[in-house]
């Protein structure tokens, strides 16, 4: 497990939270003209998992990918520029929020068709095994994705070939407005992965340290030839499925569950951990917030200052040149 300083997990989560909040606030300006799926409330799985990976390990994700991209080290300005449709964006304006990539950071791509990146990640793990380069692939997906046929075809192949991949299921209990119990029978998701022959585990996805430790163990097993790993993290999406708002007024989720999960804020949890051990004080926290805010302001400014793509380069990138 890469060593990091005591504040780092908190700092990374707080940074994602503040970025997502800034995106939500500025979305009303109607300058970011693309669907956007925010990960507020789910920061611990993004940060805990990626903090257990080597720089050279690769990550794939789905529609709710901002946190995964940022936690893996994806460039902030290029992400924001992509959301603003600028030519300097990480897909040069072709992708928007639902299609992120920063290969230099090991973030290999996210796409919004549910399940789309699942077999692709398995293919990357297959390549890693065949080329024997020691790289572990991590794939983020949600509880809804677990219902896709391709998920099971992919787990089967990964288990058959003992591929170096960690399947990370962020179970936030809802697919858009539909509860897990209206989509799947009463049995644990991770037990199905275990039945496919994966080493499977389930834990609190809002405890960043627990996430990191479990992932670190899984990555070690995957890297040493023990085959595919499956981690199911229980978590909660705080805002609407798509868009910037809190949509509790629609009452599709029980109010008491919402209250319970808001109290289980992953950032608050980590702050409590650090403060109870005298590892964090108000000054350190304020400094952290200030530095993050400066970085965000600068990134928005640079992103918005960049030009829009022009008509003549719309036709580029369809085939290799």
């Amino acid at each position: 497990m890469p060593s990091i300083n005591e504040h780092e997990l908190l700092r990374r989560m707080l940074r994602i939270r503040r970025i997502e909040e800034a995106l939500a606030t500025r979305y009303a300006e109607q300058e970011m003209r693309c669907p956007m799926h925010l990960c507020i409330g789910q920061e611990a799985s993004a940060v805990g998992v990626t903090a257990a990976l080597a720089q050279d390990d690769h990550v794939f994700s789905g529609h709710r990918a901002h946190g995964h991209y940022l936690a893996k080290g994806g460039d902030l300005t290029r992400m924001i520029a992509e959301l603003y449709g600028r030519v300097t964006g990480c897909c040069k304006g072709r992708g928007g929020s639902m299609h992120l990539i920063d290969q230099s950071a090991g973030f290999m791509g996210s796409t919004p068709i549910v399940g789309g990146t699942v077999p692709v990640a398995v293919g990357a793990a297959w390549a890693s095994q065949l080329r024997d380069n020691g790289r572990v692939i991590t794939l983020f997906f949600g509880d809804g994705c677990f219902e896709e046929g391709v998920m099971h075809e992919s787990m089967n192949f990964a288990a058959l070939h003992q591929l170096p991949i960690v399947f990370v299921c962020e179970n936030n209990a809802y697919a858009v407005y539909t509860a897990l119990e209206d989509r799947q029978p009463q049995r644990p998701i991770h037990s199905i992965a275990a039945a496919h022959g994966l080493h499977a585990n389930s834990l609190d996805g809002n405890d960043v340290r627990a996430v990191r430790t479990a992932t670190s163990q899984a990555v070690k097993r995957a890297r040493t030839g023990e085959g595919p790993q499956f981690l199911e993290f229980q978590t909660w999406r705080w805002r609407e499925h798509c868009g910037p708002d809190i949509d509790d007024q629609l009452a599709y989720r029980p109010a008491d569950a919402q209250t319970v999960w808001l109290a289980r804020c992953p950032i608050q949890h980590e702050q409590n951990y650090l403060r109870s051990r005298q590892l964090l004080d108000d000054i350190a926290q304020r400094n952290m917030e200030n530095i993050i805010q400066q970085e965000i302001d600068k990134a928005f400014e640079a992103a918005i200052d960049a030009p829009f793509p022009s008509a003549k380069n719309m036709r580029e990138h369809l085939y290799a040149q």
Partner: protein
Amino acid sequence: MPSNPSLRTHQQAATNHELSGSEALNDALTLCMERDPSTLIIGEGVPDPKGIFGTTDGLRQRFGSKRVFDMPLSENGLTGICVGAAISGLRPIMVHQRIDFALLAMDQLINNAAKWRYMFASQANVPLVVRCIVGRGWGQGPQHAQSLQSLFSHIPGLKVVMPVFPDDAKGMLCAAVTDNDPVIFIEHRWIHSLRSEVASEYYETPLDKARVRREGCDITIAAFSYMTVEALHAADALTRLGLEAEVIDMRSVNPLDVPAVLNSVAKTGHLLVADTGHENFGVAGELIASVARQGFELLQTAPASICLPNLPCPTSHAWAEHYYPTAINIATQALHLCDIQIGRVQHHELEKLRPTTLPDIPNPEYCGPF
């Protein structure tokens, strides 16, 4: 939105009401479910608070959870399950909030739904309707804005329709539900906010007939889906330039109503086809080929088409006006076909067609997020 009076249906006023496209679809679903208890509806988000852009609002409350279903995120499996239910006497209506998700179900659609009748010599019906919504604008991008009508239309055994105006949306959805073969019912996202007079009672509109939405004698504009709206705008400008365009809302893709286009071209001698899909191997090319095969002598000039470029849809709104052709492109092409030079007067008229809203939204009220 066009204010053309020819868009109005001429039903008796007492039984009509003005509805949006989504309200008309909701009306059709309600009536179909009332008429036939074997009708059921299933799709990701069908009973949720947004009700598939309002089209399924209230159905769960009215018809219960044994007929109105949400579903797991399992498009291929559920399509096959719907085929199984259909051959067993039910009439399932499946919904995909984006047509791009129907791609996950292509095996069951093409290998089973489309083939079942033929390979088993009509010993079973497959009364399945698959509603697919095509996204456009607000950064829908490469995987949420595809127009795949030609893909589905290539498959013998599937019927493919693309109504535009609310009256047709209602009548064609009713006809699709009653039909004993699988129907791919493609709804452009921007038709949901169009409004027109719609008859209140149950009625069916044929799934194989185009409809002349505006008569004219100088050029035929055969349009598919939302391009009909753009074609009617273009026709208004062309009138002011002395050119009377006949605008045909094709409504159905498979089968194509080629006779309707031949009838019109016999009068006009010129054909322009406007489709919401890509140009290559597309619906516009298919219609032009059919007209050339069956009515070559009617054509005074080579037909032309206005389609999407042969590119995935890029997300940035800066590209929207370059990616999506509109009334200006149609009118300009129509002038070319009729050998009218574009001078100052023409240019002035064409410029008036430029959208007053930003090019990535259907109306000023639209503000995302999907």
